[in-house]
């Protein structure tokens, strides 16, 4: 064999001659000329494919970055808007005192029939808004109570019906009517009770007078 690694080298003449001829033949061997063109074409295709993959990957990275940035902007805008709404003091139009409310309450019917309808006290075209600190009774705790818009609703119900609001009256078995000013949230559920007044009949009013 042809190298210095001569341990175990075949010694017989036939093997030596065969090996010598084989090694000479192998040493003259080169790749066919046509193979270079094939390899070059494959290399071109591989380069083109790699560049295409790089372009696609770069576009994907750009799209992901843009999407992430847009999401961050939206989240930040939402947080800022929410914080601004929380920090904003109630406007003068929304703050009404109890006397203002009473002033705007229109005359209620004085009949003894219990009314189940709900009246919204008008203030121009919009319902009267009231501030929460004037509440007589707090009925519900809402996570957005500090920022939500409340409507003041005047209802006339029997005293027994106050049970539905979680309020017990002092008069057992009382069946008289009461006017209740209820603060109603945006979802239509009662939040607070501003005031409760017993509805007096004409006779009762006369007797008190």
């Amino acid at each position, binding site marked *: 064999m042809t190298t210095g690694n001569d341990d175990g080298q075949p010694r017989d003449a036939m093997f030596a001659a065969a090996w010598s001829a084989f090694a000479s*033949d192998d040493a003259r061997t080169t790749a066919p000329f046509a193979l270079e063109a094939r390899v070059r074409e494959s*290399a071109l295709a591989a380069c083109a494919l*790699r560049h295409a993959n790089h372009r696609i990957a770069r576009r994907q990275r750009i799209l992901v970055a843009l999407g992430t940035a847009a999401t961050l902007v939206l989240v930040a805008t939402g947080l800022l808007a929410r914080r601004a709404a929380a920090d904003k003091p109630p406007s003068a139009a929304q703050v009404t005192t109890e006397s203002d409310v009473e002033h705007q309450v229109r005359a209620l019917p004085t009949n003894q029939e219990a009314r189940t309808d709900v009246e919204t006290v008008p203030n121009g075209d919009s319902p009267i808004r009231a501030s929460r600190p004037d509440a007589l009774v707090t009925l519900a705790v809402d996570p957005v109570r500090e920022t939500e818009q409340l409507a003041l609703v005047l209802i006339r119900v029997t005293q027994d019906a106050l049970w539905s609001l979680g309020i017990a009256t002092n008069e057992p078995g009382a069946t008289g009517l009461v006017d209740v000013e209820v603060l109603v949230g945006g979802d239509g559920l009662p939040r607070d009770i501003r005031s409760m007044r017993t509805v007096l009949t004409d006779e009762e009013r006369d007797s008190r007078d």
Partner: protein
Amino acid sequence: MLWEPGVPDDSEAVLLAHAAAGDLEAFGVIYRRYQQIVYRFARAMTGSTDTAEDVTQEVFIALLTEAGRYDPARAGLSTYLYGIVRNLSRARLRRDSRRLSVENFALGSRNAGTDDPSIRIEQDELVATMRRALVRLPSRYRELIVLCDLHGLSYQEAAVVVGSSVGAVRSRLHRGRQLLRLRLTRTSRSISQPAMAPMRLAV
């Protein structure tokens, strides 16, 4: 790293970096520099010129597309290429292990050493016999005989290529040479067989 066509730059790493960046001129330099050893090794390992061409093509494309895996500090580019050829050839042999090769690649090859037709025919037969015996060796022996005895690699270089210790290389090479001589003796007894007879490659 600067490299210009025609300038004998020699750093294989520089050439490879340019080739990987799409410089086909640099790739051509690498190909012309290493095509012979790649093709010869692939041919000796697979026993087929067609398969050797395919393997050679795959080797250079793998070199181009995965140039970052080559570490010049670990081995020379030729050693690295030998490793790729070995792996691809073994994979190809495993895939084709159930196929029969009917190729005769030795007779009629470039035996230009003599003008005497009878001597030329005799040498062609010797080459065919040796190649037939070689391809029937298990690949773990064949690869070391080709690397060390045909391509002149040292034991250390061969150990890097096949991923074994020098001691294992030495032991396997010794065993392979013994087997080759034995196979050659058996093959030479039947040398009068038709050259196109099917043969099964050892994997």
